[in-house]
């Protein structure tokens, strides 16, 4: 199919405008632009790859079908993540099965070295780069398992900040809460995660 359309890079606003006008190419570009970030965020919250894939798909379907209702009062990015987080939050609330990263799943594994390495890192007793340590599969699993032990509210805010890298303003817009609530919730989430990790690494 030959397209008489200029092939230019558009920002979110331009892509959303074109998507609202029925431009399927713009729709594809929006999906490709954000699918990995949405999937990764959902995965870190729900801790199950199959569920994360389904929720990511559901998120984009919902966003595309309702794109005409998007008024542009917030950024498309925060609107997209609001849909993703709400779907994931509701899903986690009604889920009964354990996530793949649960601490119980890790109990029987040979993780002593990784535990020791992580303990040293968090105690700030080494000069090891946390980025390198995090690439260790077992250490990553311990961190994710500890994360999955948090309440949904705490897990979500910490994932949005420390993994997705949102600003406090963006988190407030995404979760539709006050800026002060973001600060206090994030602080409590970090403190709780610290306690969980200390228990795991004893």
């Amino acid at each position, binding site marked *: 199919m030959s397209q*008489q359309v200029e092939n230019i890079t558009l920002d979110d606003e331009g892509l959303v405008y074109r998507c609202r006008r029925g*431009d*399927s190419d713009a729709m594809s570009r929006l999906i490709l632009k954000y699918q990995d970030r949405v999937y*990764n965020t959902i995965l870190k919250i729900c801790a199950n790859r199959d569920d994360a*894939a389904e929720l*990511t798909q559901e998120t984009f379907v919902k966003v595309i079908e309702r794109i005409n209702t998007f008024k542009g009062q917030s950024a498309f990015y925060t609107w997209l993540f609001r849909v993703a987080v709400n779907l994931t939050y509701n899903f986690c609330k009604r889920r009964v099965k354990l996530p793949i990263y649960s601490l119980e799943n890790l109990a029987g594994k040979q993780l002593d070295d990784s535990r020791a390495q992580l303990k040293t890192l*968090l105690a700030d007793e080494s000069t090891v780069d946390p980025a390198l340590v995090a*690439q260790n599969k077992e250490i990553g699993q311990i961190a*994710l398992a500890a994360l999955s032990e948090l309440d949904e509210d705490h897990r979500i805010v910490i994932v949005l900040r420390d993994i997705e890298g949102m600003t406090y303003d963006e988190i407030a817009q995404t979760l539709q809460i006050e800026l002060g609530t973001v600060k206090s919730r994030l602080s409590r989430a*970090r403190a709780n995660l610290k306690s969980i990790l200390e228990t795991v690494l004893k």
Partner: protein
Amino acid sequence: MTQIDKPEIEELLSSYIDGELSERQCNEVKRLLDHDPQVAEMLARMERQKELLNALPVESAPETMLADIKGSLERNLLIGREVQEIREVAPSKGIFARRVLAAAAMILVPIGILSIVVLSLFSSPPEGKDNIAKNDSPGVTVTIADSGIPDSDIAVELLPGNFNSALQLATSEAAAVNSFIEKAIYSNGLSDNTVLSEKDTINTYRVSSTPTLITALLQDMETIWAKCRTNRFMVYDEQLQRAAVVNNITSVQILDVFEQAEPEGRITVAKMFAEINPAVGSVEATVRFDPSNPIKPVLTGPEQVPTTDDASGVEEKITLIITVAGL
């Protein structure tokens, strides 16, 4: 640092490592760090924890994600159609309200259509051409019936020698409808026979192929009808110098039109549907082509001219112009 202060200090440090404190608050934290090693240790631990989470490997979405999303959108189109069919077959509530609305529609729709026709006549070019003709370009202008459609005057260019048809769809789910049409075009092997153009709120697909493939395309597009608020369909033939316009044609009716072997039969069937769709009103038009410019239609009476190239045994080529207007 006391246990009472701890939550407040934790919150302060948490915002500090994220760079979300004011200058005054930053100075306060620095003062605390200088005087309390416990606070400094707490900060270091918090920073390492944040760095650890930030450095966790990013996992990519499955490779099939885009295709899966498009598939879901299409499935939702199907479900939407089924729901609509159920509602049409088994109405249960609001009979009185529907009767009132139906009565209002019977009064208002003909008035609306009459207004469009009158407006078109009075806005005709000075040469006195047909209301569907355009003087300045080799094309015809068709107006979608719903007055709520933005940029509803859409010029479609005629292809000389071809049987031409135009299907104009108005929908509030243009992205999904366009995606579905593109997939139908692709799956019927019509990509190379299609030119897509985009202008503001409107996507136009100009498909030129055999009646068999155009019919197959329309069969695959059947599901999008439920997602369209209104439509207008037009057929016209240069050699026959005849045309017909049908408002809100159904998916079954449009297939009936294209299942006719000859252009004359297609126009006759379309005219029949134009007459039997009284609830929404229909308009039919007859055009003659200016001999000096064979692709510029002008208003005239019908004239029967044989068209198909039966002797050659080659299936004729026809054009279908699908326009999707986002609401």
